């Protein structure tokens, strides 16, 4: 699942780049673990910043959280255990990608529902209208517009 997420994110059209406020002294010696830490950092909010992940933020709190994430990874936690640990400590607020829960279900379902609902409604309407017959004639031009049209038409060849 995590791999799939990562690859989907790679496809994402307006994806965040690997953006870094990570300090040299924080980096873990094992590259695999470090890259796990980085992936997790991108999903965690720096709570004192305005909409920044702890991976982006220079704030001291973000550094503490980055170190905490690495500490948990070093202790052998899985990614979801690390997230659980942080949510237990700081609440759902810390997750930049909210979990699917009672309070967030509407948010997650919005796009698919709108897409399917909108698509169906449009399809039905187009079919109904194309069955129901003839074109509605355009309203006739007012004399004023007739005059304007004549003026435009007579001007056309000269402007080209």
């Amino acid at each position, binding site marked *: 699942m995590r791999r799939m*997420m*990562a*690859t*989907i*994110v*790679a*496809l*994402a*059209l*307006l*994806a*965040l*780049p*690997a*953006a*870094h*406020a*990570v*300090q*040299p002294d924080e980096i873990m010696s094992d590259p695999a673990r470090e890259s796990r830490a980085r992936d997790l950092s*991108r*999903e965690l909010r720096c709570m004192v910043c*305005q*909409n*920044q*992940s702890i991976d*982006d933020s220079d704030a001291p709190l973000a550094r503490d959280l980055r170190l905490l994430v690495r500490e948990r990874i070093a202790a052998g936690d899985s990614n979801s255990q690390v997230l659980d640990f942080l949510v237990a400590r700081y609440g*759902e*607020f810390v*997750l*930049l*990608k*909210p979990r699917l829960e009672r*309070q*967030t279900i*509407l*948010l997650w379902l*919005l*796009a698919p529902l*709108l*897409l399917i609902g*909108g*698509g169906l409604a449009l399809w039905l309407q*187009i079919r109904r*209208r*194309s069955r129901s017959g003839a*074109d*509605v*004639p*355009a*309203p006739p031009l007012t004399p*004023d*517009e007739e*005059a*304007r049209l004549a*003026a*435009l038409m007579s*001007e*056309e060849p000269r*402007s080209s």
Partner: protein
Amino acid sequence: MIAETGHYALVLALGLALIQSIVPLIGARLRDDALMNVARSTALAQLLFVGASFIALVTLHVVSDFSVANVYENSHSMKPLLYKITGVWGNHEGSMLLWVSILALFGGLVAALGNNLPLSLRAHVLAVQAWIASAFYLFILVTSNPFLRIANPPIEGRDLNPVLQDIGLAVHPPMLYLGYVGFSISFSFAIAALMEGRIDAAWARWVRPWTLVAWIFLTLGIAMGSYWAYYELGWGGWWFWDPVENASLMPWLAGTALLHSALVMEKRNALKVWTILLSILTFSLSLLGTFLVRSGVITSVHAFATDPTRGVFILLILCLFIGGSLSLFAGRAGSLKQGGLFAPISREGALVLNNLLLTVACAVVLFGTLYPLAMELLADFKMSVGAPFYNLTFAPLFTLLLLAVPFGPMLAWKRGDLLGVTQRLLAAGVAGLVVIAIVWAWTRGGSALAPLAIGLGVFVIAGAMTDLAERTGLFRLPFATTLHRARGLPRSAWGSVFAHAGLGVALIGIVCETTWNSEYIATMKQNDVAHVAGYDVKLDGLFQRQGPNFREMIAEFNVSHEGETLSVMTPSKRSFTTRGSSTTEAALLTRGASQLYISLGDATAEGAIAVRIYHKPLVLLIWWGPVLMAFGGMLSLSDRRLRVGAPKPARAKQRLQPAE
């Protein structure tokens, strides 16, 4: 004296706007040409007075008159002249004044260039413009007066936020506002059409150039803002799904949808009701963006609660205009006649699909931005919606959209032949597949979806080229004929080719940068060498320099590639004494579309310094894409067919007058 003049000019503009709000409408009701023509004069006079007010504020900033609170809080006598000027809109009051100035500019342009509009339509449009203007003049005068004096003027100002002292900021907000506020014109046209109860293809023809102008500026403004964030914020990120960015993305998505639906309306007289609704929604989203950014509600619901005057005022404006226009729409939309039948598989159908996907994308951004606020207020549940959420939801939406883009322009109006178009797009599809295979083989074992996304980008670009080749008969007809046809092709056709290709270009840039970005984070001492993506970056030394209103520490790096010295890069860290804050000035080395990016962290006591070096492959494509799109927009704007229904050159004015 200058401050008072500026203030007074703004009050006069409000007075003019109030007249313009009412008199032309009475004129339209009474069919009185003179009363309707009042709108034209007041719109031009408004532009004059708001312009004077804006120039007054600029002058105050330039001469560093610290007896004015706005100047004291945002300027410094040692600040370079350029940033004294751009500092005018680097703060709340000044940026609101810029907002109304641009609104007045658009109103003035409609008044000056709208001679070929039916008189009553012009009167209605300008009256609606004046309603918006009045609301915002009042907002500025009541809650955000930039001309307030300080009783005991301080000697020195508090300087502008250093992050904003940059050329990118000089251009970004005006561009963005030209886009935001430009959509007020299509809004006013929509309301005018609803009030008059009359809407036809000619209406779309008048609206489209204005929408296009706004869209071009918004596209460039967003791209500019993104590039500014990329080089100024110092960690190489270029899009953060920040609520402030979302506030500009929403009108862009809706505006892009509007451009396409107005096309259907102009060509086929269909989608009228929807186009009107989109015009209303696009500007409503611009207003919402203004509210989100200006009320402080984004930072926290509580920040909004502690100083609610401004927020509540804008919220009122927001409710009044969005609520009012939507009620008017609900009441009148039924009376608008639908026309132009089409089969689901047709160019109209493709444009409807485009609209569906763009509006869903827009709804996702809107929901993502407002959902946490609503949950906090209603359910006392604190949550965040950030980049990972948007990336996950946008990827499938935009994949669908981009897959459909090459088909749209090649389908026939009314009833299209999907199979035939697929056959004609075969070459483009093959090009995409070949690129996927090459990238796959080349990167071996990397992310599986990155080659697919790049292939999609190539498909979109090749699709746009195919459309062009088909229309000009390239490879089928003699070259001279092709050339002749290419010259005869409407500019708007060229425009859509460029704009669509721009999408593909941006996609490729985004995927390459995200997937193959290499980074190097370390503490470096003098003569240390970093190896990043085949480049050797050697730290030659650190030194200090005194700037006009800052001190900076510069690091000098010698960059070489395979033993050949390429360049010297000098990133720096600036400390601004007045504000006590610092900025990182990243150094960029451009090679083709790729960039080497160095930014500095903190220095240690032993003379070493934390350094971040990135190699960002094809990163510039991210911004070349939008530039191509905007260029396409400009080409389309220069199309003769649009100009016929749009602003007229002065020469034609004479001929048209008798008809009015």
